[in-house]
Each structure stands twice: as C-alpha cells, then as structure tokens.
C-alpha cells in the first residue's frame, strides 16, 4: 500500500522528516499464502460441519424417485413438501400412523414442566448452598456433583422401582421427575456458582433488615439473576428435548417423546424406506434445539460450557 498523503500534501517539514524506505503498514497481499491456508482449512472444516444439514434439507425436499436416481448431494430438481407433511402427520410407528406430531406434543408436555421444575428446585438449592450454608450441605452437594459423572445405566433400575412405588412409572409426571433429578447436579452447580459471585453485602444487608429465606430469594436474588436463568433454560430445553434414554425407559409408547418416536419411524423394519420422509422427520426433531441455538447464540455457548460436565 502506498502511504503517499504525507509526501504529497504540501507540508515541507514532513517531507524532510521522513526518509526513504519502508514506512507505515507493511504491505501485504490480500491473498497471502498464510491466508489461503488459514481460510482454506476453516472453509473445509465448515463444509464438513454443514454437509449433513445440507443433505438433510435437500433430501427432505426430493421425491423418492429422484432420490433413487440421483446422488444425495445434488439439489432437488423438483421441490416437494410432501415428505414434510407425511413426516408430521402420517408416518407410522407400530400401529399408530399419526406421524411425528404426537411425539412433538409429548415432548412439549414433558419439556415445559421439566424445565420449570428442575430450574425452580436447582435455583433454590444453589441459593441455599451459596448463602445459607448449614452443616452437611457441602457433603450432599459433593455427592450430587460426583453423581453427575455416574453413568445413568447404574441408577436407572433403582429409579424404576422408586417410580413404581410412587405409582408414576410410565407416566409423564414420572419422566418429568426423572428429568428434574438428573438435571439437578449441573443446574445446582450453575446457580450456586452464580449466587456465590454476587456481592455478599447485599445478602447481609437484607438479613440485617430482617428479611427471611424466601423473601431474600424472591425479592433480591431472583431479580438479579435473569441471565443465569436464561442460560439454565437453554441448557434444559435442549437437553430434555434431545433426551432419548429416559424417554424409552420411563414412558409407555403413547407417551414417547419425539426422539424416541423419530428413531422408531426411521429404524422400523417394516415397509419401504422413505428416505425423504425420514430426513424431514429428522429435521423436524432437530428444529427446536436448532432454533434455540441460533436465537441464543453466545448464551448457548455459556450454557454448554457450564453443562458440558453432563456429557
């Protein structure tokens, strides 16, 4: 790049001061070897990550004859939304042929109360742990956190027995309880760490003013922790929506969440494989977490970084 202004503008002193030779920014070609490598590598990686999404979309928009003839990467010659309609309303699992819509609504019925319940419990727990430490609290908390690493398979059967004793095995409420239990470690950790980071003077001042446990929670802590509630919500919405194992184990077929139903539709051995319907169904199941992801952006990153321990 030529940095001529200083030299051409009528300003003799400046001309005197500068000597010949390099000045200003080092000239760099816009396309340097380094940049080609850098953006080339990033672009290739991006392609690998985007490819499946692309394949899902184009396959779901093709008709079966076109799929049999063409290759999976080519864009649809004739766009059809039929597979989407079929996936939503007509695809069969076992005897039911009312499509994924049933699973979708089941998932909604499971997710909404689970998210609310688990966040309510965990936020109060986190608050109690951060501000009202009592003897033994840390021990229980440690068990909880260690428990987050225990494979679910170890605890599933005892939990089945507990739910059966409570009379809610196989029902939606049973599954909601299970989600609240297994969401507890990570959410409690999240909330505890957040409340610990708040200035302690605030809490002390409120106590001196005579406020009690619940008053401080609702009047002071809640209004100050909106961001962390959003992070927790993102974590739980995607986590619960994407759950498969608890869905299969703790519900009856009529209550199956969307993931289980999707798997049953696609992997059913009966009938002709309709790949376009399968991909439409897959996209439909992925839509909710994807929308949450694209809308929440950086908060999502914060949430998964916190929730990563959950594995």
């Amino acid at each position, binding site marked *: 790049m030529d940095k001529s202004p200083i030299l051409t503008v009528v300003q003799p002193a400046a001309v005197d001061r500068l000597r010949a030779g390099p000045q200003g920014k080092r000239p760099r070609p816009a396309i340097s070897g380094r940049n080609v490598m*850098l953006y080339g590598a990033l672009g290739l990686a991006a392609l690998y990550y985007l490819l499946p999404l692309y394949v899902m979309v184009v396959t779901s928009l093709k008709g079966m004859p076109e799929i049999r003839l063409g290759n999976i990467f080519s864009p649809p010659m004739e766009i059809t939304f039929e597979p989407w309609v079929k996936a939503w309303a007509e695809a069969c699992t076992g005897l039911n042929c009312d499509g994924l819509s049933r699973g979708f609504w089941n998932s909604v019925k499971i997710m909404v109360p689970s998210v609310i319940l688990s966040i309510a419990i965990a936020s*109060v727990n986190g608050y109690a742990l951060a501000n009202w430490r009592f003897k033994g609290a840390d021990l229980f908390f440690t068990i909880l956190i260690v428990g987050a690493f225990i494979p679910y398979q170890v605890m599933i059967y005892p939990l089945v027995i507990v739910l059966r004793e409570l009379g809610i095995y196989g029902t939606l409420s049973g599954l909601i309880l299970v989600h609240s239990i297994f969401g507890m470690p990570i959410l409690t950790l999240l909330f505890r760490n957040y409340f610990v980071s708040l200035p302690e003077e605030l809490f002390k001042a409120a106590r001196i003013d005579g406020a009690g446990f619940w008053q401080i929670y609702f009047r002071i802590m809640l209004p100050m922790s909106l961001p962390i509630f959003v992070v927790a919500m993102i974590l739980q919405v995607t986590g619960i929506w*994407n759950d498969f194992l608890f869905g299969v184990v703790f519900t009856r077929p009529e209550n199956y969440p969307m993931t289980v139903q999707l798997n049953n539709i696609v992997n059913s051995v009966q009938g002709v494989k309709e790949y376009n319907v399968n991909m439409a169904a897959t996209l439909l199941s992925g839509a909710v977490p994807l929308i949450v992801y694209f809308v929440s952006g950086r908060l999502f990153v914060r949430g998964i970084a916190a929730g990563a321990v959950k594995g």
Partner: protein
Amino acid sequence: MTVFSTKPPGTSPSAVTSSTARPKTRARRPNRLFRNLSAKIASIPMVLTAVVIFLGGTVWTVVYSFTNSKLLPRLTFVGFDQYERLWATPRWLVSIQNLATYGILSLIFSLVIGFLLAALMDQKIRFEDTFRTIFLYPFALSFIVTGLVWQWILNPEFGVQSVVRSLGWTSFTFDPLYNEDIVIYGILIAALWQGTGLVMCLMLAGLRGIDEDIWKAARVDGIPMWRTYLFIIIPMMRPVFVTTLVIIASGIVRIYDLVVAQTSGGPGIASDVPAKYVYDYMFFAQNLGQGFAASTMMLLAVAIVIVPWAYLEFGGRKRG
C-alpha cells in the same frame, strides 16, 4: 444469629428488650436443627436426590449385581457369578472392545481437531462468529438426529460411496455401517461431527485466557508460532486439556443413543457398546443380574477416569 451480632447495640429497637434477649438466645441453643430451617426444607429435594437416587441407587445396583436376579430383583447372592458370565459373553467383549477403540480414537481426534480449530479461530480471523456457529451447531442436535443423518450419508446405496462411484471410481468402497470391521469408525465420524465443536469452544476459551504478553514475549524472542503453541501455549493449557479430557471421557462411557440410532448395534452385534448391553439385558433379556453387573463395570470405568482427576484437581488444591 448474625442478625444479632452485627447490629450495633443501642441503635436497634431490640436493645430495649435486652433483658429478654439473653434467655431467648439460651433457649435457642438446643434447637440447632431449626436453625436455617427454611434453607434445610428447601434443600430436601437435593438431599433426597443425592442420598436416595445417586448414592442409594448406585449402592443398590452394585449390591444386586452380586445376585442372580432375573426378571425381578432378588437378594440371592451368587458372588462373582454374574461378572464371570459377563466376561465370558462374546457380546460384552465386543462392546468393550468397541468402547476401547471408539474411546481412544475419539479422545485423540476430539482433542486434536478441537485444538486445531481453536488455534485457527484464534488467528484474529474475520467472520469468527459465523465459523463458531457452524462448528458448534451439531452440538445442539440430539444423538438420535446425528445418528440418523450419518446413517443416511454413509448409506452405501445412495450416500458417499455411490456418489464417489458415480464419479468414475467404480471400485470405491466405503460402507462402514454394513461392515463389521469398520462399523465403529462410522460411529466415530458421526460422534466427532457432533462433539468437536464443543471441544473447540473449550479450547478457544483456554487460548483466550492466556496472557497476551506471553505471545508478545515469544515474538520478541523470535520463537516461531508453531513452536510457541507446542512448547509454551499447550503446556500452559494443561488444566483446560484435563477438564476437556474428563468431559469427553465421561461422555464416551455413556455412548448409547448414537449407536441405537445409527446402527442399532449392528451389523449383528458388531457395534454394540456397554450402555446398550446394559439396557438390553435389563429391559429385554430380563436378566437383571447381568445388567447390574455390566452397569457396575461402567461405573468402574468412569471411576478410573474420574478419581485420579478429582484427586489431582481438588485434593491437590486443598494442600497447595
């Protein structure tokens, strides 16, 4: 109690009733149980979960793994019979072998790919947010969705294999999901697609946490970039690597949904994994004892990863 001790005497109205304050505190002492009562009541769900489900459930499963429970749990102890049978079952051996192959490769590739992507992202690039969004979105998707997409892409009749063949390389063969020998690599590809974005994010956060001056000092010293990464930055990121490793490892042991969706454990039992073995024995084969024994083995595997880490991470910190 803090309410009383922090109030300066004389300024509070309770000072007037100081004659009654003394017996009151004495009366409160025996009732330690009721101190912070609301907090204790609010913590009941946590305590129940920790004690009954996490602790109780784990102990229960371990205890019942020494019984010959079939359809229903029964307390007839048979010593290590279930474990002996487990380790004599070819299906379990296959699933352990799969877990080992998958685990080691997934650890290596996740860390390498995740770190490389993070290092590329750390070069003050343009469109960083776009790239981050692209690398991370698979993590928002469930394993079921992941498994089904890659099942489709790896479908030999229509997927990658057929596309490459149609380009002229007619002998090209890549059908991991239908080939017992390489099916686990097919699952690995899908798992890496889903999970490396997260590793990248953790690594990038680690890279961003490194003092800018270290980079400057290395530049003044004339140390080339790759050497700075290799000999200075990566050693400095040890804690990030350890945390990431634990996260990946505890995810590896649990792998279940992905296999169910992508291969259903097939062809045959070639892609079986321990978690699936446990589930099948508990809920289909009606052989609870086997399921309990297998899940106890999973617990052991996790413990082998977690305990040394927790010891180094928390045990060491307390002393240092």
